[in-house]
């Protein structure tokens, strides 16, 4: 069984009466690429801040590499590379001086590795941060978070301000780190980039994890989408119990199966066979749709 690299148990963090995150349970194995998905304000950054020891958990526990995220925070960070969601660096730094300074603080030479990464990311290390564009600063932040070859990478929306080419290079770098045994915790609010990189994903919404599985499991768990187009001038019958409708007009019905059980599928087919329908489509949704369902969670029109 793979070693658990990042572990949280019933992790809860509140801001007074405001919601932060509640009951977050994560068990991320070493060497995995783990996506942490959710809309803005869902609690992704709060979770990361607790993991990095900026915030103390209100309840529950969080550990990285077996060490407590609050008590052993500085020991953890020796093995962690992190990039905050809204990266700001000291304006007087250049890429070179940043590598030297961070290496000195970390107590190890990261200049050579940093230069290699800068070549990959196409970053001129002689430019001062105050003269850098947002994308350049993001690249420097990523280089600084990876130059010490950390065992765990915690990245809060790391592709912000990166062009598609650099996003692709970053993904390659992260895959290489994961192949070398490092754990990548990748937070994002867009499914597409998580889908391209991660093997496993947790979807967080309003401070709680609403799904945590591999992408293929997520796809398999998703209920079929159903679209029925009625013949013109026909009054459709009442929908069967197996069908949960989101749209219901005299021309078209759209919805999902109530569950993935075979019985429900048969029930739907039997219903459709007896109806005057012009067209019917029963399909598995793509990941984006699944993701949006978790985001939106719209009330279905009762069956």
């Amino acid at each position, binding site marked *: 069984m793979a070693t658990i690299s990042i572990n949280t148990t019933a992790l809860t963090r509140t801001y007074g009466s405001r919601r932060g995150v509640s009951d977050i349970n994560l068990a991320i194995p070493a060497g995995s690429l783990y996506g942490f998905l959710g809309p803005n304000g869902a609690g992704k950054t709060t979770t990361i801040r607790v993991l990095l020891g900026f915030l103390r958990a209100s309840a529950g526990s969080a550990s990285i590499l077996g060490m407590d995220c609050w008590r052993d925070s500085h020991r953890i*960070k020796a093995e*962690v590379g992190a990039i905050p969601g809204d990266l700001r660096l000291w304006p007087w730094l250049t890429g070179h001086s940043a590598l030297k300074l961070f290496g000195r603080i970390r107590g190890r030479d990261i200049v050579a590795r940093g230069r290699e990464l800068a070549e990959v990311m196409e970053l001129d290390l002689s430019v001062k941060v105050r003269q850098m564009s947002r994308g350049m600063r993001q690249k420097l932040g990523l280089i600084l978070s990876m130059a010490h070859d950390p065992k765990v990478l915690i990245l809060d929306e790391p592709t912000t301000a990166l062009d598609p080419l650099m996003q692709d290079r970053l993904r390659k770098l992260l895959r290489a780190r994961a192949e070398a045994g490092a754990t990548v915790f990748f937070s994002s609010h867009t499914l597409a980039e998580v889908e391209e990189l991660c093997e496993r994903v947790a979807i967080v919404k309003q401070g709680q994890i609403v799904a945590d599985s591999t992408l293929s499991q997520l796809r398999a768990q998703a209920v079929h989408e159903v679209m029925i187009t009625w013949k013109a001038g026909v009054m459709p019958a009442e929908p069967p119990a197996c069908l949960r409708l989101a749209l219901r007009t005299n021309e078209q019905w759209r919805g999902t199966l109530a569950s993935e059980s075979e019985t429900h599928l048969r029930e739907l087919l039997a219903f459709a066979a007896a109806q005057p329908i012009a067209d019917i489509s029963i399909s598995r949704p793509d990941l984006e749709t699944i993701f949006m369902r978790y985001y939106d969670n719209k009330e279905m029109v009762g069956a």
Partner: protein
Amino acid sequence: MNFGLIQRSLREVWFASLAMSGIVFGITALFCYAMPRVQARFMQRSFIPQGVRQFRDAIFGGVDSTGASIAEVAFAIAWSHPLVLVPILAHAILVQTRVPAAEVERGTIDVLLALPVSRWNLYVSETVAWLLTAALTLGAMYGGAYFGAQFIKPEIRDVATPDWGRLLMVLVNLGLVYMVVGCLASLFTTLIDRRTWAVLCTLVLTLFSLLVSFLHTIDPALEFTKSMRFMSILDYYKPLAILRSGEWQVRDMTILLSTSLTLWIVTGVIFARRDITTT
């Protein structure tokens, strides 16, 4: 203590510290050049207005200046005049309100806290960097005094030049006042997270402390100042007493040292235990 962090802090404050040291050097040099002449003229007079005497006593921490030499009074004034004290204390406030408040406001605190250094280590490193710049600023004051004294007119130089060893003792006393103000600024910045508010709170408290000194000297019968006297920072800073006697003001300096140490430890505990983030 982390040398990389000390280097980072020094890089952040070197310009402000150099500029402030230059200002302190210049003002002190001017005062230490001019005050002996003013004092020599003053001492030729048989009558010193009551207001002037009270103001002088107030900035001397209530120490009576009767019988003091030109050098003692002149240098005591130069070393306790608000124009000299303000840039010195402003430097303490400027440097000590950076972490975490200024870093939080600038958004760089997340990067700083993501480094593999404990909060205590970060706090100690920040303090060491501060003390190094403090040594520069306070050294500039002593240097300014020495420089200014070189231009005192030859006819009064013998009576208008202080004992430099005693002036060094005054510098230590002032250094302790500086430490109290700096530690107070650090406490506010750790509690508040907003630099402007931290600066404002420290300034208000420091000015209140100075006001208590002045009000008490001007009207010792005031009940309000009697009860608040313990907060009067100038009561613990006695340049004239040190210059006259050449003795350490042990009680006052112990109070200043223990106050700054207490503030430093309390701030460190809060800094190590509290939640700190950009938003």
